[in-house]
């Protein structure tokens, strides 16, 4: 048999067998066996606990349970707001790694974001908004190098199903050195965006989802974080 013919036969053979392979499977499963294939899921939610002594009101448009927005009024720079924030996994969730991105910024009396550049008149410093994280052992806090509004919180341990992280935020405040009339009647906003990614193949999953390289120890704890 010539070489060319051999190749043709081979390709054809592969294709036929592939199709056949699928058909066999279909026939097999439609016979006497019904196999249930349950896909594991991954579910997380933010757990926000307002400072009850200072909270003004919940946003009427907020979703139920843990996604309520909270507001505070007539706060003086230096005053600590003891609002707590954590992340929990659903009951049937896969173990997951957690990252929360906090974006902090100023809003004027009309509710519009203040978009002045540093040095420009009317500039309000986002770094005046300070977030306290007590559990520095398990939360790695990284300020974005390029954007002073953005802060990343990485939980270093994988979180099992139906479990909750420690607080990534124990309190926040405006640094007292910003007690200046330029900030009077202005408002701060902190937007939190939590992301969970599967622990299994965690290093690759984190790289694919968050774009960062991590080092994991034998227990699965993140020991190093490196941006690409």
């Amino acid at each position, binding site marked *: 048999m010539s070489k060319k013919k051999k190749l043709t036969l*081979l390709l054809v*053979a*592969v294709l*036929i*067998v*592939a199709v056949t*392979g*699928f058909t066999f499977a279909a026939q097999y499963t439609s016979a006497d066996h019904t196999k249930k294939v349950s896909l*594991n*899921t*991954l*579910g*997380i*939610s*933010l757990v*926000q606990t*307002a400072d009850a002594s200072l909270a003004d009101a919940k946003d009427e448009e907020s979703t139920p349970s*843990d*996604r309520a*927005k*909270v*507001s*505070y*009024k*007539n*706060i*003086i*720079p*230096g*005053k600590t707001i003891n*609002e707590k924030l954590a992340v929990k996994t659903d009951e049937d*969730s*896969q173990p*997951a790694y957690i990252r929360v991105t906090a974006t902090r910024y100023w809003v004027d009396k009309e509710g519009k974001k203040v978009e002045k550049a540093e040095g420009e008149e009317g500039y309000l410093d986002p770094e005046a908004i300070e977030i306290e994280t007590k559990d520095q052992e398990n939360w790695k806090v990284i300020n974005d190098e390029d954007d002073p509004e953005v802060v990343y919180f990485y939980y270093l341990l994988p979180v099992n199903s139906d479990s909750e992280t420690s607080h990534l935020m124990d309190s*926040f405040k*405006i640094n*007292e050195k910003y*007690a*200046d*009339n*330029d*900030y*009077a*009647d*202005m*408002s*701060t*906003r*902190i*937007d*939190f*965006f*939590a*992301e*969970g*990614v*599967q622990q299994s*193949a965690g290093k690759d*999953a984190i790289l694919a*989802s968050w774009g960062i390289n991590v080092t994991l120890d034998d227990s699965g704890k993140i020991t190093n974080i490196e941006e690409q």
Partner: protein
Amino acid sequence: MKKTTKKLLLALSLAAVLSVGGTLAYFTDTDETSNMMTIGHVDGSLEERTNEKNVEQTEDGITYLDKIVPGDVISKEPYIVLDGESQSAYARVTITVDSDADLDSEQKAKLELVKDNLDINNAEGWYKGDKGYYYYNQILNPGDTSKNIFTKVTIPGAQWDNTMTNLDMKIKIKGELIQSDNFTPQLEDGHIVSWGNDITIKEYKK
């Protein structure tokens, strides 16, 4: 193994690899929330009242229309009112006595006697502190009115002579407020005598 079987196994492996390669993905989930905090402000006003009858009261203060002679005692009661929407605050004032006329040093010194004669209301919380300020010893809460800074102006008697005639005299009072939360003034003998050196006072713009 027969050749035919080998090919079959290889083909099945290829098919399996093809199907698995098309569905690789990672499980992820997200959630979001936010909070908002509005900064307060400090605001108030300096006001005054008098028992004198022949006066004109404007936003700038009281103008006494009767001619004043040495030895006169004039009713004048300035005080501070903290705005109802303000944050609680400490208060202090400066007091200056001057004239629009071009005064020589002797006249200026005689005018300064008016300020020295003021009955600053120590009993009700006003004390002289650093840098010429008079400090109110109590925290003003929203809507509060302070006690009078003083109650009368005593024109010097024997110390004033004809060199002070026909002068228009102005008593200027400038008030300042500072948040009481997260701020500790300096005390001496239980009285506030200073707000420290790192304070920048700006007018609140509504």
